């Protein structure tokens, strides 16, 4: 066990230290509160981090190369991310900070584990009767004066929304962040229609203007530095390319977007929770942009993944307490909005989207992935994600949750993703709805190997890996992290042949205990419950 791992266990000492001191920033620009205290709510960093000075300008590494249905080479994209040390370190530091904020927030709730159990059970129950709850939701929404539509897949969702917009003579649509519409490829589809789509979440807007997908479910532009943002805004909004002040950039975006919001003919939001008993769509945001999308234009549309259902309003008392604490370490998002009925003189539409979910429900080993509330905690804690960036996965969903749901969309294209994991189990430990993520990752490896979706080389590794990886507890013991929160990866976990991901990738500051040293110490000595 290295000193580092011990550090990790003590928690407190770890909290003050940076993994990469070189990305510490001297001046602090974050807002101050009423009493002068530094604020860290929403996704605010608990200390200033920046990807270095202008002198060391580094081009933003781009995501995975997409070649039709050919398997994504996540490792190749990850290598390019690692080869951009300023980006990589700032990204790693930033997400590790969010992960630590999450820990602090959860430790303040004695019933945290009970809440996770409840959330998981409520989701399991709802999914086991999803047909009934969907019918109840639909009936309620209709009674509330809402138009309800059903879309079997992404293409139908896009056509449906497009038709709605056309029928209303809409020329522009403002929208808030929605992973579902990303999944449907909605923005790309709309590009050919002559109706302008304007993202209103700052991070998502940055990504839209840079013609890039979001790299994180909660923080879409977390892989970009302020210099990258300054460059994008200079090109697209005409801001001063030399001014990389975060306040200047955010304010420029506000001023630029405001008229677009006022002129928009329609607004669209995603949905965090859909309450069956009341027909309510709940969104959780920090910027207030979902509320602008839902409350300013005459036509209001909510796109809803069918797995977002929960039975009753009282259950929000469980999920709302879990969501933002897991995602950002904040007790709640700035805005928790409940849309139920149209405003007088306006129309409200809800689109219930399946897009593979009903099929996933029938996958014995994988259906519980439908419990996901898209908090991103599993991504923030994942050592592979933090070091390779969300775009390296070449899929809508990245990080651990991506590994287990992307293959359901396209087995061949995402066949390699389940191998981008160290199997440390940290994702499972932080998941607020208790999805056994790392076990599903392993199960996917088996499925993909059996179906010959992966190359023989990796199949050989699978056999070797099976021994240890099939026993996650043993594996966690192996990598020596009590709470499996991996600040650094032990060297063997990255470089031993059991892991396909670490091969050929040099990681800084990894403790140098070898697999065999560990094996002697743990398996042969104390044993791991064999």
């Amino acid at each position, binding site marked *: 066990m290295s000193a580092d791992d011990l550090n990790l266990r003590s928690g407190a000492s770890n909290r003050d230290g940076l993994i990469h001191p070189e990305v510490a920033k001297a001046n602090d620009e*974050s*807002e101050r*509160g*009423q009493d002068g205290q530094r*604020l*860290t*709510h*929403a*996704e*605010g*960093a608990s200390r200033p981090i920046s990807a270095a000075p202008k002198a060391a300008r580094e081009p933003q590494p781009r995501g995975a190369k997409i070649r039709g249905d050919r398997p994504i080479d996540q490792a190749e994209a990850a290598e390019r991310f690692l080869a951009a040390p300023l980006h990589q370190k700032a990204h790693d530091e930033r997400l590790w*900070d969010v992960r630590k904020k999450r820990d602090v927030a959860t430790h303040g709730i004695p019933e945290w584990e009970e809440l996770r159990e409840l959330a998981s*059970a*409520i989701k*399991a129950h709802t*999914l*086991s009767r*999803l*047909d009934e709850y*969907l*019918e109840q939701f639909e009936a309620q929404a209709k009674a*509330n004066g809402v138009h309800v539509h059903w879309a*079997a897949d992404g293409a139908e969702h896009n056509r449906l929304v497009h038709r709605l917009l056309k029928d209303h003579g809409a020329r522009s649509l403002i929208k808030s962040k929605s992973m579902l519409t990303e999944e449907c490829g909605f923005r790309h589809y709309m590009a050919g229609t002559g109706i302008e789509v304007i993202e*209103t979440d*700052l991070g998502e807007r*940055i990504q839209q203007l840079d013609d890039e997908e979001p790299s994180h479910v909660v923080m879409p532009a977390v892989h970009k*530095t*302020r210099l990258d*943002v300054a460059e994008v805004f200079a090109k697209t909004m005409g801001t001063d390319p030399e001014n990389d002040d*975060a*306040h200047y950039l955010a*304010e420029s975006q506000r001023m630029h977007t405001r008229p677009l919001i*006022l002129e928009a003919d329609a607004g669209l939001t995603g949905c965090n929770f859909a309450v069956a008993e*009341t027909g*309510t769509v709940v969104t959780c945001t920090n910027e*207030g*942009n979902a*509320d602008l999308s*839902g*409350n*300013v234009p005459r036509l209001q549309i909510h796109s809803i993944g069918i797995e977002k259902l929960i039975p009753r309003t*009282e*259950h*929000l*008392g*469980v999920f709302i307490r879990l969501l933002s604490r897991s995602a950002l370490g*904040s*007790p*709640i*998002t700035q*805005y928790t*909005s*409940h849309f*139920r009925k149209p*405003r007088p003189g306006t129309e409200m539409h809800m689109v219930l989207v*399946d897009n593979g979910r*009903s099929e996933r*429900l*029938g996958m*014995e080993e994988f259906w519980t992935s439908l419990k996901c509330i898209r908090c991103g905690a599993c991504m923030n804690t994942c050592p592979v994600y933090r070091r390779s960036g969300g775009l390296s996965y070449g899929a809508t969903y990245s990080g651990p949750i991506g590994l287990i749901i992307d293959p359901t969309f396209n087995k061949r294209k995402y066949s390699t993703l389940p191998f981008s994991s160290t199997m440390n189990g940290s994702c499972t430990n932080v998941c607020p709805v208790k999805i056994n993520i790392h076990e599903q990752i392993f199960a996917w490896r088996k499925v993909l190997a059996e179906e010959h979706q992966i190359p023989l080389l990796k199949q050989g590794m699978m056999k070797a890996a099976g021994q240890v990886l099939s026993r996650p507890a043993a594996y966690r013991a192996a990598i020596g992290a009590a709470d499996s929160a991996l600040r650094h990866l032990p060297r063997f976990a990255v470089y031993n042949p059991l892991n396909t991901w670490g091969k050929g990738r040099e990681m800084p500051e990894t403790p140098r205990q070898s697999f065999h040293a560990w094996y002697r110490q743990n398996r042969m000595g104390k044993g791991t419950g064999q």
Partner: protein
Amino acid sequence: MSSRAATLEAIRKNRPSGEYALPEVPVFAPLVGEDLVAEFGERLKRMGGRIAEPGSADPFEAVRERLKASKIVASAVPEIEGNRDLSQVAQPQDLADVDVAVVRAVFGVAETGSVLFTQDELRVNAVAYLAQHLIVLLDPADILVNIQAAYRRPEFGRAAYAVLHTGPSATADIEGVLIHGAQGVRSLTVLLMPRGAH
């Protein structure tokens, strides 16, 4: 077959086997102390909001400077008269020039520092987002202990629109630098004013 029928049929076919009972949600002990006003204020401040007691001579003393500096004030409360009548607003876009909006909260939540509005308090929902600054009147007697208590309130099943605001609009999408006023209001100040007192 319609997509509705196809989806429902697929769900029925693929329903996970086994019984998954809906658990009873126990009532959790509040994690806040006795002094709900103090707890509420503390948490609101951490979420970027401001809190103030009404002044004895001028109940709006704490925000007087702000009000003086404002051209357009939209008030949805009898305690203060604005110069933009929310009942006369034809469309939300007409509120784009509002500097300050004043609204009353249905209740506050001590656990998080949140306040709840419905369409009735806001008159025009968009005013709470298009205004540059938001002043919220909250009766200290209306502070609930926690989020769980909030979701037992009837408003969520009744209101066309209900929203919990916790501090102002915020973003840290650029290198984690926390910035208020991303798209919505730049500041949110809660004045602890009992209903019908002034």
